[in-house]
């Protein structure tokens, strides 16, 4: 019972006053003198480059798989799980055994919604693109680029609340990408081995796992939602393990994003015969 209730007083109606004069100059968007624009500019450059490359790679619909002809088993992460009917030539491409016979376009376009949705709704990327692309705000203490603002209270931005469902799907994708990395140890006609391509797919899968697990929604589901850690020791330990990763979520977001593009590029260059996948052993 609150003090007001104990005393039998009706909760007071207290006004928030707005429209009063504020101090400081009104004619400038910011008084900051440092290079606050560098960070949003870098974000715009890197994200735009990634989107441009990913669009090119996704629409190509070829050179995404290095197969038995080259004694390799490498598939681009942009195309995995490869579930379009045209993927059936990809040996062991995915464990699901589902083939989308209706799909006549690039196989990547069928599945990229999951990693795209996961990153688009990610709490870190939200900060990055709200600041850099949407200018809301471009930097701290710099005026918002929009006259009106409703945040994530309305459609479409309220859809960010589905982030945890994209996380569940992304974890499934990570399982598939891990299997791809394991299959990359198989060199058709030459037995088991290890090449630069194998290393690339292994590092890519590892980075995607760490990035996904470090996600704020994952931290919440694993233990953050609990108030009494002492009664949930295992979930508390999970939460404790994820917390230091979560502190590096931004770095992991960037590293995994860049590496997934580099992995696709590597597979693409090998598949198109431009470079040879060097076998280490």
């Amino acid at each position, binding site marked *: 019972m609150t003090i*007001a209730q104990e005393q039998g007083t009706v909760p007071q109606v207290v006004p928030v006053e707005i429209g009063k004069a504020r101090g400081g100059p009104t004619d400038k968007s910011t008084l900051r003198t440092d290079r606050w624009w560098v960070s949003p500019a870098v974000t715009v450059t890197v994200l735009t480059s990634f989107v441009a490359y990913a669009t090119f790679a996704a629409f190509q619909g070829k050179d995404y798989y290095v197969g038995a002809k080259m004694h390799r088993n490498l598939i681009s992460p942009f195309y995995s799980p490869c579930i379009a009917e045209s993927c059936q030539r990809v040996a062991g491409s995915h464990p699901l055994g589902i083939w989308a016979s209706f799909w006549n376009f690039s196989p990547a376009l069928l599945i990229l919604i999951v990693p795209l949705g996961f990153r688009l709704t990610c709490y870190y990327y939200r900060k990055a693109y709200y600041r850099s692309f949407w200018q*809301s705000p471009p930097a701290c203490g710099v005026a918002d680029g929009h006259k*009106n603002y409703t945040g994530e209270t309305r459609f479409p931005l309220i859809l960010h609340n589905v982030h945890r469902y994209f996380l569940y799907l992304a974890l499934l994708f990570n399982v598939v990408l891990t299997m791809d990395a394991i299959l990359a140890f198989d060199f058709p006609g030459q037995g088991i081995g290890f090449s630069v391509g194998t290393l690339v797919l292994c590092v890519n899968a590892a980075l995607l796992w760490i990035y996904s697990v470090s996600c704020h929604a994952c931290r919440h589901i694993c233990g953050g939602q609990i108030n009494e850690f*002492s009664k949930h020791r295992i979930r508390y330990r999970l939460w404790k393990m994820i917390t230091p990763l979560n502190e590096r979520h931004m770095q992991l977001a960037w590293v995994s994003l860049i590496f997934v593009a580099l992995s696709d590029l590597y597979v693409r260059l090998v598949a198109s015969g431009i470079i040879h996948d060097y076998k280490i052993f």
Partner: protein
Amino acid sequence: MTEVTMNIWRGDSNGGNFEQYKLERVEGEVVLDVVHRIQATLAPDLACRWNCKAGKCGSCSAEIDGKPSLMCMTRMDTLPNDTITITPMKTFPIIKDLVTDVSFNYVMARQIPPFTPGKPQPDGTYRMQQVDIDRAQEFHKCIECFLCQDVCHVIRDHEVNKLYYAGPRFFVKLASLEMHPLDTVDRRALMREYLGLGFCNITKCCTEVCPEHIKITDNAIIPLKERVVDASYDPIAWLGRKIRRKSKMTAQEAYELAPARVAPTSLDGIPATAVED
């Protein structure tokens, strides 16, 4: 000895402008020391709020070269320019010079249902494990300097949102209450419907300016947003509640426990659009 020019905004609710004060730099000074020297030598009528000079009272909040900061914790030798601009906090109404009226925050504080423990142990005491309250210790470091409220663009650049938005400082408060092992009030619907948690677009400026280095966004706001997802947007969580026959508190029920209600709000039938931005 080098010279520094302090460009300080002087004025009140009727308007104002910048005035320049040239002083010698003295080694080891913080911005508040220089403001005090100006008061002592050049402008005895310069108004500024201060108290502890140790970064613990949260009184001397201002904007130094456009960045919300505590004047007592900003060393002069960390500021690269020879001209330093000081303005009052932009989000709050001006009183005089560097002093603002921060009563918005006290109004908001009264919208939050306070700590409400359940039944005590048979011996009349309450007990909890250290591990259960460790997480909330970080939130208790808050010195209420309101720099996070000042920098938050939701109310800094869109004043009309002050009617519907508690702000980062109070999300920290709400997180400490929601995560408390003994608390029994469910404030999730209240946060979503009336305290404006959805307005936050997690751009982390509150975390950047916090002098106590509280990770406001990562440790308070995002966990609260996830709890709101549990309560309002997650069908699996909804199904879980139905199966376990667990109910959640409505926003109205939680609001009844708060010391006061804000007015006007959408609750009073006044739409947000009725107020000009």
